[in-house]
């Protein structure tokens, strides 16, 4: 089988697309050296093979995983696709090839480099998403809660069940700045949509007050004799601090920069993301 250093697959970046790449790898009896999502830059003499996404093929691959390997492996692959590990597509392909060869046993082959890397990547994803269950900070705008996060992995699908359950009677949005995606929950329905930029209106006095109270609580609760910044940073690395109320150095009135494109971020009946705070600012001046 050609284990080509020159074969490159290009696909549309969807999970189904990746499943089709797996299909193609078996169909053409070849192992690509790279599977490229559309965002990556093309090289000058690009000879990448375009793999068309075909729902039927994708389903065949996806449904065969629990039958030929195990449902645990299926979960691992699904999660693996959300991770930020470089060349995750290739890792998943190799994992599946290994799985189709060895069956369910692949999940216990912990000393294998591929299995080990995929499990580590997924571990990174799940632990980051667990952290965000706590570190997400909502601000109240009228009736709507809005939070911004900057995760490494694509954690929104994992956060969705948790927050939708917790804030069942609320309307909220969590904006993932890294992946430019937003989780929007209203009238008992959750949606993931892509949003290029987000503009938030100014916060009201109640919000200012609760932020102040929370900052005060945060300061008070620390015991002076035990101050241990290193321990604090280990458990809550600084990259999370930017979007956390109690650690954000910026003034509470700091604004996100403007311009909204995206596909319909309007939450009905509210002013979230529809009003440009800068214009308000100018008027009030």
């Amino acid at each position, binding site marked *: 089988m050609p284990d080509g250093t020159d074969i490159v697959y290009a696909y549309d970046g969807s999970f189904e697309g990746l499943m089709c790449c797996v299909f193609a790898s078996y169909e053409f009896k070849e192992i690509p050296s790279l599977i490229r999502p559309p965002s990556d830059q093309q090289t000058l003499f690009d000879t990448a093979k375009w793999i068309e996404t075909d729902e039927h093929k994708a389903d065949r691959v996806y449904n065969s995983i629990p039958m030929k390997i195990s449902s645990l492996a299926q979960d691992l692959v699904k999660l693996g696709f959300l991770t930020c590990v470089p060349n995750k597509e290739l890792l998943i392909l190799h994992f599946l090839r290994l799985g189709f060869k060895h069956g369910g*046993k692949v999940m*216990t*082959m*912990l*000393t294998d*480099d591929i299995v*080990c890397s995929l499990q580590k990547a997924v*571990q990174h994803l799940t*632990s980051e998403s*667990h*952290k965000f*269950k*706590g*570190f*997400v*900070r*909502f*601000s*109240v705008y009228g009736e709507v*809660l809005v*939070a911004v996060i900057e995760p490494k992995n694509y954690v929104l699908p994992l956060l969705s069940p*948790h927050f939708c*359950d*917790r*804030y*069942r*009677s*609320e309307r909220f949005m969590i904006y993932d700045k890294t992946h430019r995606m937003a989780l929007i929950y209203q009238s*008992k329905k959750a949606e993931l949509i892509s949003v290029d930029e987000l503009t938030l209106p100014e916060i009201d006095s109640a919000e200012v007050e*609760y932020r102040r*109270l*929370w900052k005060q*609580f*945060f*300061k*008070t*609760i*620390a*015991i*002076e*004799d*035990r*101050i*241990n*910044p*290193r*321990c*604090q940073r*280990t*458990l*809550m690395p600084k990259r999370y601090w930017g979007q*956390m*109320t*109690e*650690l954000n150095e910026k003034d509470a009135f700091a604004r996100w920069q403007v311009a909204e494109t995206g596909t319909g971020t309007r939450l009905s009946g509210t002013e979230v993301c529809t009003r440009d705070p800068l214009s308000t600012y100018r008027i009030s001046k």
Partner: protein
Amino acid sequence: MSDSAKYDVACTSSGVDRKGKFGSIGSAAKAGICHSFSADGRCISLLKVLLTNVCIYDCQYCINRVSNDTLRVAFTPQELAELTINFYRRNYIEGLFLSSGVIKSPNYTTEQLIKALELLRKVYNFNGYIHVKAIPGADSELITRLGLLADRMSVNIELPSQESLKLLAPNKTKESILRPMGLISAKIQENCTDLVKYRHASKFVPAGQSTQLIVGATPDTDHKILTLTEGLYRKYHLKRVFFSAYMPISENSLLPSRDTKPPLLREHRLYQADWLLRFYGFEAKELLDEQNPNFNLQVDPKCNWALNHLDIFPLEINKAPYEMLLRVPGIGVTSAQRILSARRNGALDFSGLKKIGVVLKRAQYFVTCKGKVLEGLKITSDGTIRSLMADQYKLPSQFPEQLSFFTEPLVKREDVQQCLTGQI
């Protein structure tokens, strides 16, 4: 108000899974969730407050004791509920940790706590996590009502022996503390059978109860504290026992002087031992005895145990049973489980162990793979001790870096094991 409550260590929000409900706010996650970490590195999960810092008791170690000259204030139940709900909506917190000074009498105080929680649960429809302090000396009937509103209840023992109590907390007795603890434990048991019988029986402190012991305020030894801890887990089925290094907050001839440094490392060792009791199948008497009543501050308790039992090592990784794997320094709960599943696919070697997550730096002295020790390793009991100790000396002891282990999040993470790997 939090200023007075901060000396309570417990901040876990773990132990109960509860789905959200329409029309109400909140849910609870079994694993617990840390929402932030304060500058001292401890997890902030719950809004930790006192209903009031007025107190009729005179416990010498406490800043709210009646003889201390401090400003006395109180929350109204409405204020407290508003604050909790608004923090919760913004995802600042996982729930409320409500404690109180003893105002007028234990019964009166408990009634106030019940009032506050009823308002929060029934009027504000708060469905998140609540941890409440049981007030020693309150009637059983009141404690029962309080327990039905909360997820976790705790009674702080604080001082590990009757003599210390008499000296420093003259208004409390061992009996007054252990009675509510016994009651809560009995109620939980009773409630379990009720739930089997009637599906809709209300839940009594579904996340169990916990307690806290002060370390270093009295001459009680580690052995005494650990034996007490073990007893509490067995007899009262506590979910957690917390330790708190004594912070000198008042000048008193009965207590260590104000410039005493809090025994943080000792507290750390106690937490490590606590883990060994709960997850590693150790017994208190294996770790300490009358002759060695205190932990070795240089070496962690598990290493210490291993060094005293060199005759059973080295263990063959590919044959040793799970219980024995857990006893190897450098192997934690997760890595032991992973060894079990990985070795079904063939014998493991040292590089495999490393990939699995075993801390070879420690484990290498105690294991063999396929009958061989790690290449280039010379085992003499003396050498082992020296290299393990050398490892410890690199860290300036009594220095904070080493202490990151015991902070709350580790308790709470779903995969407690993950945190343990290689740490004990």
